[in-house]
């Protein structure tokens, strides 16, 4: 898992290693400083001439400057490396997601991918930064300090033999207890935030039913629940401070007592006062580094879940791949379904579509009717290979869709999805999604065909009107027509409209279809609709139910033979009634 992620380090490997090296250098100096400090204190105490005191003093000054340089440089390279690692990781994650098929996207879901790209990466960046700066520094500091303490203090260093295990055990205990508590708190926290978001979104419902007191109670319970669990977790962690202090004090008292005794009984020949001071400093360093190690451990474990979620995306292979030697030319817009069936997941009890056999000649217009959840959208998504058929095969232009280059296929098959979407930018930049090199004349022509030109021109900024995120500043019908224009700009061999004119009035709807007939005679058109009028004049009308095509024919034959079709037509034309 960690290996998968470290691949994203790339050009930041150098600053990372540099940080590690600098940290080692800084630690070495930091450990030596007390040694020379003791020297200095002793010289001062011994009353040696000033010029001899200056020597160790200067060494200390140089060391402090070196420590500053190393520590500062490590800060710079460490920040560079960790921010860079996060950037690469985020970029890699995003690029990986771009290779994903619809199936992969369904599996992860958009909100969860957003979390992985943002919060999870932030945690990993923090953990990484802490690791490269402290994961080397703290154990080294610990090791060197212990060694130095034994060199300098001799028997005095025995103090650490007592203190270190106490602190280590205590820290392990705290970490072990706190970790699961924190993990459960964080997931509760996420859930509470989700429910606040839900409340904000549904504010009209809350107010409409005068449910404010109910929502307050619900939130208070969730918030209080978090308070309880969080307090528990924090109280455990809060033991760290006093524990650390206890060990420091123990160390202090021990060194003072044993140290004084050693000095006095030996008449100052074994150790001296300066060494006692140094031992105290080492004590602080040793215990602090232990504390740091435990903090890193906690930090890493907290970010473990984030790492897992990122690595999961990075190691997911796109479920749809280009064939080894793909076809790069779609000869025409004919479509064949040969005994096609499809399941959204292997475990699904039922097929979303099954037993589909169908030939659509190039240039034909096909209408598909059927209630929600009958498999209409599923069926057409197999054509541009948004999903791969589970059984049978789908052919476009006489070849299996799996033999085409994906980009070629999707350029030839233009789908206006039911859940269509515009992106923040201008109308023009959105339309250019269909063809990046489209001239203004081409764009306007597509918009005229989609009956969008007129309303676009009515905007003060025309084609340069800004589209807000989610396209909220144009009406539903306008959005649909922009999406159709965008799809037309691809100049596709096959054009599929998945319920794409539901918010457009019947007259405009008819104009759009009329335009298709006269300007796109060679393009195969597939229209999924709720309105009978949208498909009535198609060459072929399919009626779907429970994932199967239950009837097909023209308006005329279906009226004669198909009860469902008759029923739909009657309902919608009763007294001329129509969707407006």
């Amino acid at each position, binding site marked *: 898992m960690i290996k998968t992620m470290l691949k994203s380090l790339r050009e930041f490997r150098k600053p990372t290693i540099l940080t590690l090296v600098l940290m080692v250098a800084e630690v070495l100096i930091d450990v030596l400083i007390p040694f020379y400090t003791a020297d200095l204190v002793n010289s001062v105490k011994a009353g040696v001439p000033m010029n001899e005191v200056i020597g160790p003093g200067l060494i200390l000054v140089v060391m402090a400057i070196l420590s500053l340089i190393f520590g500062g440089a490590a800060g710079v390279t460490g920040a560079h490396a960790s921010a860079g690692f996060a950037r690469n990781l985020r970029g890699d994650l995003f690029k990986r*997601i771009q290779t994903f098929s619809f199936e992969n996207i369904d599996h992860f879901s958009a909100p969860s991918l957003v979390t992985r790209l943002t919060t999870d990466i932030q945690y990993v960046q923090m953990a990484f*930064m802490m690791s490269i700066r402290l994961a080397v520094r703290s154990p080294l500091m610990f090791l060197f300090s212990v060694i130095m303490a034994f060199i300098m203090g001799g028997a005095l260093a025995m103090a650490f033999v007592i203190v270190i295990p106490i602190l280590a055990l205590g820290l392990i205990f705290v970490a072990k207890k706190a970790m699961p508590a924190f993990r459960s708190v964080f997931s509760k926290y996420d859930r509470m935030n989700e*429910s606040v978001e839900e409340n904000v979104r549904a504010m009209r419902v809350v107010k409409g039913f005068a449910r404010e007191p109910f929502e*307050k109670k619900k939130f208070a319970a969730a918030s209080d629940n978090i308070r309880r669990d969080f307090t528990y977790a924090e*109280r455990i962690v809060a033991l760290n401070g006093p524990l650390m202090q206890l060990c420091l004090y123990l160390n202090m008292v021990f060194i003072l007592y044993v140290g004084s005794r050693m000095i006095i009984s030996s008449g100052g020949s074994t150790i001296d006062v300066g060494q006692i001071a140094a031992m105290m400093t080492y004590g602080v360093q040793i215990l602090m580094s232990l504390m740091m190690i435990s903090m890193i451990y906690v930090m890493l474990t907290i970010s473990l879940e984030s790492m897992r979620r990122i690595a999961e995306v990075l190691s997911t292979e796109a479920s749809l791949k280009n064939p080894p030697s793909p076809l790069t030319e779609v000869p025409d817009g004919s479509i064949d379904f040969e005994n096609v069936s499809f399941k959204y997941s292997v475990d699904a009890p039922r097929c979303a579509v099954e037993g589909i056999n169908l030939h659509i000649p190039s240039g034909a217009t096909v209408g598909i009717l059927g209630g929600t959840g009958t498999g209409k959208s599923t069926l057409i998504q197999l054509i*541009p290979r948004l999903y791969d058929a589970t059984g049978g095969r789908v052919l476009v232009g006489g070849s299996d869709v799996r033999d085409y280059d994906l980009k070629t296929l999707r350029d030839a098959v233009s789908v206006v999805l039911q859940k269509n979407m515009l*992106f923040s930018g201008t109308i023009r930049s959105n339309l250019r999604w269909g063809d990046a090199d489209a001239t203004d004349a081409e764009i306007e022509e597509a918009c005229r065909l989609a009956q969008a030109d007129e309303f676009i021109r009515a905007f003060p900024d025309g084609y340069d009107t800004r589209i807000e995120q989610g396209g909220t500043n144009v009406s539903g019908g306008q959005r649909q027509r922009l999406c159709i224009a965008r799809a037309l700009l691809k100049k596709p061999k096959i054009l599929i409209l998945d319920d794409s004119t539901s918010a457009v009035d019947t007259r405009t709807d008819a104009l759009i279809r009329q335009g298709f007939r006269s300007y796109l005679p060679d393009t195969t058109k597939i229209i999924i609709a709720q309105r009978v009028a949208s498909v009535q004049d198609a060459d072929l009308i399919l009626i779907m139910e429970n994932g199967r095509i239950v009837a097909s024919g023209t308006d005329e034959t279906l009226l004669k033979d198909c009860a469902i079709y008759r029923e739909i037509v009657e309902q919608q034309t009763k007294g001329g009634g129509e969707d407006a």
Partner: protein
Amino acid sequence: MHKTANRSPSDLSKNFSSLGRVIRKLFSYYPRLAPLTVFCILFSAVVSAIPSLFVQKVLAVVEELFVSRDWEAARPVIVHYLLILVSLYLLSLIAMTLYTQIMAFMTQGFLDKLRREMFDGMQELPLRYFDTHAHGDIMSHYTNDIDTLRQLVSQALPNLIQSGAIVLAVFAVMLWFSLWLTLVLVLGIVAMFYTTKFVGGGSARYFMRQQEATGTMEGMAQELMSGQKVIKVFNHEQESIADFEKANDELFEVSRKANTYASLLGPIMANIGNLLYVVLALVGGVFLLSGIRNVSLSGLPFSISILVPFLNMAKQFTGNVNNLSQQFNAIVMAGAGAARVFSLIDEAPETDDGYVTLVNVREENGVLVETEERTRHWAWRHPHTADGAVTYTPLRGDVRMVDVDFAYEEDKPVLFDISVYAEPGQKVAFVGATGAGKTTITNLINRFYDIADGKIRYDGINVNKIKKADLRRSLGLVLQDTHLFTDTVLENIRYGRLDATDEECIRAARLAGADDFITRLPQGYQTELVGDGANLSQGQRQLIAIARAAVADPPVMILDEATSSIDTRTEAIVQRGMDKLMEKRTVFVIAHRLSTVRNADVIMVLDHGRIIERGSHAQLIAEKGTYYRLYTGAFELE
């Protein structure tokens, strides 16, 4: 459309006063614990400064006696001092354990209270607030902003108090020892102060910018992830990668700078401390040798037994100043966070001066009598201000609007001269383009937005006099954008009336035509809905929303595009239930699909905020006006 929250650090004084407010709030929530904590922190700080005095005494004894090599003589003295030391340590430990435990308890309690205050306040805000603030920004109050306060209360504040106290205490003790040496130290402090101001300030500035960039990145990720399928269909992967990488690079830049400044602060401060140590040692050495007279509070002469503890204290001193400076970031960030939290808390709530309430009544001898029991008979309880008399008007569902004008923003009127008379049991339909004002009219009836007095009357009572909650309780609402909650299907239906029994909820679902698909869900009515009912189709969600309104059983219903996502075949099935639902109720219907409004008693055609046609279906068809053209498909509704 949405204005994004102002994240710029410009308003520093506001942030600063917000910090003060956080602290005052903390003390008012915990009038005993908060001062106790401060006391414990101070106590443990002072107590941990005193030991150096005794360390010095021990060392003095050692210096004096080590030539004698007589441990037995020195032992009692040293043990005496050590015992004092141990008892001081014990006190300090007790104080520390106490305050760290209280802090853990208090921090979370404080955040809980603050969160609830925020949420409770938010529930009372007018819809306008939610229309004008991006949901992501509202959410960040609960996540990022609260988190900055958690850092402040649990870490920065105690550190500030403790390190501040230690710094002061140590400073005093140092003066006790030697004025000259302390003066040298002060020079170092000045250097440290400017370092913090410059480096720490830079770090805080870039951390705020990092937060901004993170917000941008989040918005972008959100848009691109939810549009991922469109991206695939248009082979637009490379372009979106390029867009994303641009935002990613920007975030990288500020994040790198923020962290660089932050990680520079530590080493710089620590090594100023180190340098100071050397300088002090050298100066001390010079003093020792030259025998300059010591100036100090204690009046002690200069000696090695003063210099060694002084050097230790200097270390402690600079360490704590370093610690103080490390809190700089957290404090600046918390100031901005607190300002944002309070901006939500201080937002003016929806005004509600209503005093007419909805109560259960019983008829006794032809007179309505208020009762606590659930009689299912309701009346408006109307206390009259003039004479103090209380009248009861039975709840019937008669809604009248007279000459209503309305503007969401001043100078931009959206409704003109709207008059609507809906008698109990009547069905009134609104037809018109998007933005014509259909939804706005219904928003005025349930007082999502308020208009000038007296123009809307419910059962003859001015709606402004009716308590909002009671008014809304009497109005069932089904919206086009259905919103369901994370809970079971059954509880979602019960949302309409909290005391409804399971049977009543199921009956309402049958009425709405939802029972059929619900029973086919894996766990039937107990199926958990997640993510706004993401596991259901839009049509199914609308059916549940209708059932939710049905269980409330209100005299008036507002159906705003309630069946727009249900296909016509299913709608025909639902229609019978809907007809039954609408029976004996006053109903306001907004619908795109004209078949839905055809059988209304009166149809209002709206255009740019005016009613341009009104009448029954037959009348309007006969008029051959806009409605007729709409109906025959010659006109577009947007």
